């Protein structure tokens, strides 16, 4: 199959993007409505279950919405920016926000370093060890977040876990301290998310034409120089994609924190935004505060998306 070949993508005529709508496609037996017909199911599902809930989320974040309003006991009242003021004057929220950013950054960095290193390693070894590493990584990738979390907690269990025995840590409890608990979650997150980076970057390296590398080597370029001037530039789009994807996944991490630190750690020391929003909404019935946190997260991730789009654009990629 030529699916991986970049050349297989038919280049769109440069002019087509500028005046797309007016050109009737009757030539191919389709009308101007055909694409909309194809899009209809997707747009219907996304409209009803994504756009509308987002709208409602925004709406709730401006209301006073607690158990009393949900059960219909009290009328809802408009709060303006009241919920947001409450949120940003709350030192707890600001701390959770900072924690989330730092923790996500650490997860992304860890995932990328491990993933890219192993991808390069994969290109340097023979088929058998490569298959072994590939299979192990796929196993980690396939493991559901819930079971991955339970297994890692068990591995690091103070009483019965093998890790403490192996390193002679006695009955050190990883989930007791704030930083050790975060470290444990970080390890699990890196474990289950590096395979995506590794496999993708490896596929990218393999897609670099061998002739180019050979030509560069024949011309006497050093390994480092080949990497820097040939491989790295070709990999840049892929690296951008995996970075952004990791940022998105790690920023909204929920299951790992929820399961491993039992809902946010002792006295909430391991809370991240997503868990915090969930706790506010469903544990304390502060639906409007939970919704406001959701809106903040949405806006932050939207910012990341815009950066991503600009990156794609700058590389002259066509959507």
């Amino acid at each position, binding site marked *: *199959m*030529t*699916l991986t070949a*970049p050349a297989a993508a038919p280049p769109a005529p440069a002019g087509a*993007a500028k005046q797309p709508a007016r050109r009737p496609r009757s030539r*191919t037996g*389709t009308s101007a409505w*055909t*694409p909309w017909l*194809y*899009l209809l199911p997707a747009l219907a*599902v*996304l409209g009803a*279950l*994504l756009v509308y*809930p*987002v709208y*409602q*989320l925004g709406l709730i974040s401006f209301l006073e919405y607690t158990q009393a309003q949900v059960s219909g006991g009290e009328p809802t009242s408009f709060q303006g920016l009241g919920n947001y003021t409450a949120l940003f004057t709350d030192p707890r929220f600001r701390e959770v926000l900072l924690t989330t950013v730092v923790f996500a950054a650490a997860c992304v960095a860890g995932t990328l370093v491990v993933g890219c290193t192993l991808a390069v*390693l994969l*290109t340097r*070894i*023979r*088929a058998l*060890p*490569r298959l*072994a590493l*590939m299979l*192990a*990584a*796929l*196993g980690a990738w396939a*493991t*559901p*977040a*819930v*079971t991955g979390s*339970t*297994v890692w907690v*068990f591995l690091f269990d103070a*009483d*019965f*876990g*093998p890790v403490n025995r192996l390193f002679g840590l006695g009955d050190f409890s990883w989930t007791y301290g704030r930083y050790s608990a975060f470290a444990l979650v970080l390890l699990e997150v890196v474990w289950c998310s590096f395979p995506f980076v590794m496999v*993708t970057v*490896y*596929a990218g390296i393999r*897609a670099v034409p*061998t002739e180019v590398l050979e030509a560069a080597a024949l011309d006497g370029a050093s390994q480092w120089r080949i990497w820097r001037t040939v491989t790295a530039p070709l990999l840049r*789009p*892929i690296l951008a994609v995996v970075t952004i994807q990791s940022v998105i996944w790690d920023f*909204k991490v929920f299951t790992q924190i929820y399961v491993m630190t039992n809902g946010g750690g002792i006295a909430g020391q391991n809370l991240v935004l997503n868990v915090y929003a*969930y706790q506010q*909404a469903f544990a304390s019935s502060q*639906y409007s505060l*939970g919704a406001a*946190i*959701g809106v903040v997260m*949405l806006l932050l991730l939207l910012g990341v998306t815009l950066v991503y*789009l600009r990156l794609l654009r700058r590389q002259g990629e066509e959507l």
Partner: protein
Amino acid sequence: MTALRIPGIRRPGRLLAEAAALLTAVVVAFPLYWMVLSAFKPAGEIQSAEPRPWTLSPSLDSFRRVFEQQDFGRYFLNSLLVATAVVLASAVVAFLAATAVTRFRFRFRTTILVMFLVAQMVPVEALTIPLFFLMRDAGLLNTLGSLVLPHLAFSLPFAIWMLRGFVRAVPEALEEQARIDGASHTRFVWTILFPLVLPGLVATSVFSFISTWNDFLFAKSFLISDTSQSTLPMALLVFFKPDENDWGGIMAGSTVMTIPVLVFFVLVQRRLVSGLGGAVKD
């Protein structure tokens, strides 16, 4: 699979790299090995201060306990039903949408693409609140439909984004040829394009499957009173208590929950690797 031959690497270097790779593979696979091992260990060996990396007397006690205490078989079936429904529906819907945005030029095409990308960033958990009210109003609370619909919505944007590359890779000349041969566009889409894109669909469905299979937040929030509709993660968390964990039960349950995904993954493994490369390269 041929190795990328980069001249100038000496043999000892490669042996070192291979040793490092094998060591990494062992470390990465260890948690899964420990999970399966602990599931088969008798209770006495799990609650031991000297855990050994093998067992001489494997037992099925933990599995028995899991299936007896909980209606585990039923939950397993529920999980499978939800995941299958999401995978099939999202494959068809995403395929049509990806075809629309890659094979046609129309007004607002770029806008729609950007919308799909933005939709992908929406944190699922943040929408639990409005979705809960939506499901309540639609009368879907306590049904499996309340899990299928949101997961369908959340897996679509990524699926469409990934499928784009696959649909675009099918040469336009093929479409032209089909038209000349008198095939209608609908016929081209279903009898030519669809089979060609199928490998990509399989790769994409892995993500839909996993995110649906993993979910426990929606299950926890939407299936409040009817436990016969529960899915696996919830059943697993019953065993997970901060003070007194039944580790054997948890590991047995985890094993049962992990195996379908592992099987699915191994089956589509090769397509996945080429699929990601294809999607990302474009």
